[in-house]
């Protein structure tokens, strides 16, 4: 029955591409505040999207309390606006469902055109409602307070929904009738895709949409502002990063800390391997198991808890102080955490305390994969314990080590901020400030959005470049990629 499609059906299929794109756009437009046609008054929040306007009456009318009380705006106008926004939302959702169904067979396609057309009607009705609210609100007695305005987004959304409606109707008339005995069905490949689609949307929204935030790097932006072209400053913030002496000094200091702490991490990255090698020399299985289990615990607690532990052990009334005071060695407790000395080494120490047992697991597993006959042969040849370690175990672990080393080199700028944030205090802030923490303090704390966005951008690009370089090296040396 399927197989050969009539030429009319093929033509219709092409038209469906346009419909699908239009539907996708109208769904996306719901969430774009700058295209929100319901913002018919200056009292409505600039960052309000059509979707929010359609689901939350209270957000829409947040700032109208006084205007309604004084009679500048009739409440029914706002209610009409709200219902219109809701109608557009329903329309877009309906169109969305219709759009998904266009992937089905002929019978489903006819149904989907009908549904999309209904969605289009909903949208148009909603737009009409918005227009009526606008014309009512523009008759207000206090235009300087209410600031009636008409959004260009109105026309955009009107155009898109009109296209959907029109084309769907054409499809309905144009598509050949499906056979009566046909059933609604969708090809397996599209079924799978449709099931995956919600997750694609999540990924797009949470992982790709933030990239849109990179535009803040080119604007003079303060929290709460809206972006407009007057505030476009080009590469000003990039220059600031390179030329402003105060910023440059900060950046140099921060980079020094970042590279130093990452460097120390990399320089000690062989420790988990040594841990594993020496642990495997212990023949008592129970003891080995015991060590392994308990040295892994710190990996599973958060950095806040690590700090809590540091606090309980090293603060003024912590373990060390109270022990030494009770023994009469110290006169009074000392807060060892409040010192700016050796910050890098201390951070390295906490990192090792937390991570070494866990990182060793991978090497322990790799050791158990080394052929035992190698050891026996070496013993027969007279190799001692350390010779066996050095000439058999270490070479056996090197591939794993190299991969992890390359990964940590690629992550040299990303040492995370949790550890450094919790351990930072007035005395060590200069030597503990790493790039991630700096971005947090400057961006979230002081609201310096564009500059921190620039830093984030550069950091992301450097990281990805390093990762690809590391991958390239790995391919070159081992013939295997690491990502």
């Amino acid at each position: 029955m399927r197989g050969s499609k009539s030429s009319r059906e093929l033509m219709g299929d092409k038209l469906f591409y346009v419909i699908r794109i239009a539907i996708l756009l109208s769904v996306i437009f719901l969430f774009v505040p700058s295209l929100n046609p319901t913002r018919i008054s200056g009292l409505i929040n600039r960052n309000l999207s059509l979707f929010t306007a359609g689901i939350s009456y209270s957000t829409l009318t947040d700032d109208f309390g006084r205007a309604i009380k004084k009679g500048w705006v009739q409440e029914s106008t706002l209610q009409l606006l709200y219902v219109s926004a809701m109608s557009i939302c329903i329309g877009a959702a309906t169109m969305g469902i219709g759009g998904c169904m266009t992937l089905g067979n002929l019978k489903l396609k006819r149904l989907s055109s009908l549904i999309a057309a209904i969605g289009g009607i909903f949208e148009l009705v909603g737009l009409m409602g918005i227009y009526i609210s606008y014309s009512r609100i523009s008759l207000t007695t206090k235009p300087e307070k209410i600031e009636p305005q008409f959004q260009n987004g109105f026309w955009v959304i009107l155009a898109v929904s009109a296209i959907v409606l029109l084309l769907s109707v054409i499809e309905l008339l144009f598509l050949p009738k499906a056979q009566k005995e046909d059933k609604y069905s969708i090809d397996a490949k599209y079924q799978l895709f449709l099931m995956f689609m919600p997750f694609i949307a999540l990924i797009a929204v949470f992982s790709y949409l933030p990239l849109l935030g990179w535009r803040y790097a080119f604007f003079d932006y303060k929290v709460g502002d809206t972006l407009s072209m007057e505030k476009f400053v080009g590469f000003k913030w990039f220059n600031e990063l390179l030329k402003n002496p105060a910023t440059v000094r900060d950046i140099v200091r921060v980079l020094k800390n970042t590279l130093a702490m990452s460097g120390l991490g990399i320089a000690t990255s062989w420790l988990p391997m040594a841990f594993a090698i020496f642990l495997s020399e212990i023949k008592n299985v129970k003891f080995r198991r015991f060590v392994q289990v308990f040295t892994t615990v710190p990996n599973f607690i958060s950095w806040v808890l690590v700090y809590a532990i540091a606090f309980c052990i090293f603060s003024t009334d912590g373990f060390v102080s109270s022990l030494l005071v009770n023994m009469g060695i110290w006169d009074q407790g000392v807060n060892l955490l409040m010192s700016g000395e050796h910050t890098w080494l201390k951070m390295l120490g906490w990192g090792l305390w937390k991570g070494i047992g866990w990182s060793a697991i991978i090497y322990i597993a790799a050791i158990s994969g080394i052929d035992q006959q190698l050891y026996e042969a070496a013993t027969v040849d007279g190799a001692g314990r350390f010779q066996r370690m050095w000439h058999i175990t270490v070479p056996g672990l090197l591939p794993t080590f190299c991969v992890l080393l390359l990964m940590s080199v690629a992550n040299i700028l990303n040492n995370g901020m949790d550890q450094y944030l919790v351990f930072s205090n007035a005395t060590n802030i200069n030597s503990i400030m790493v790039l991630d923490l700096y971005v947090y303090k400057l961006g979230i704390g002081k609201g310096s959005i564009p500059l921190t966005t620039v830093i984030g951008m550069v950091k992301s690009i450097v990281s990805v470049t390093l990762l690809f370089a590391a991958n390239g090296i790995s391919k070159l040396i081992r013939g295997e990629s690491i990502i």
Partner: protein
Amino acid sequence: MAKTAQERADIKAEKRYEKKHRHKFRSNPGDIVFYIINYFIFGLFTLVCTFPFYYIFINTISDNDLVIKGTINFIPRGLHLDNYIALANVSDLSNAFIVSVGRTLIGTTLMVAASGFVGYLVTKQEMWGRKFWYRFLIITMYFNAGLIPWFLNMQMLGLTNTFLAYIIPGIVAPYNIILVKTYIESIPAELEESAALDGATYLTIFRKIIWPLSKPILATIAIFGAVGHWNSFTDSLILMQSAPELYTLQHRLYIYLNTASNLKALMESGGQVSDAVLKSAMSGKVIKYTISMVTVIPILLIYPFMQRYFEKGIMLGAVKG
């Protein structure tokens, strides 16, 4: 399994041989020194990793007066549980506890369900644009826009100062999806094929075959996910700036550690303090220790049971890496 007499004899002989050899190793003085040092160092490091937990714990259950004097260092004295009971009555703490438990349960459940389902979907070669969408997913592991764009994005989406901000962004976890996908690929394809021949839909196959068979890997990612949710701190710090009632336990702990909180400060900071707390005369030290313990106990409790899953998790990652 019954062993023949010959096999039994072989094993016996082997054991005797091993014993003799071990004996030979022991007799070497260099080896003995090595063993002593090795055992000592590992013993010491294990102690360093565990003692802090023990120390904090005994300080929360010992007599508060002795704790303040700093005399409880190794042995608990004057055992009582009043501190825990008192803290349960501090409203912002019990609130934070509920938020943390809530996000851990809901967030983990959704993440595991989504990872299982998506992991199954991406094994299906026949999906439209599978390769592209799979890459679309994987790239996000290696690339992110940065903290500030992420924050502005969450703000734009209205996911600040709301509980949903803990849940929704974590639903799709690319790394876990890869783990599940690798695992599902190891399930014999015949099982699925026969079900498909019987007319089972993708959803039925997933529910009746794939989901039950991938329980081991789902358990593993569930545990990692739960630990991640429980430990997560920065999202509370950055996204909940004007919603203190949504702070996680980790965030509360951070705040308490950083304020010179004694009982007075606790009251001033808005926590409603009940009579029980007033009676228990908890000092700032005891409060901090007890909150730390409350935050760490769930991890320590699940840890022994989950140990094997933890190790399986890192090994699966290694296979991929």
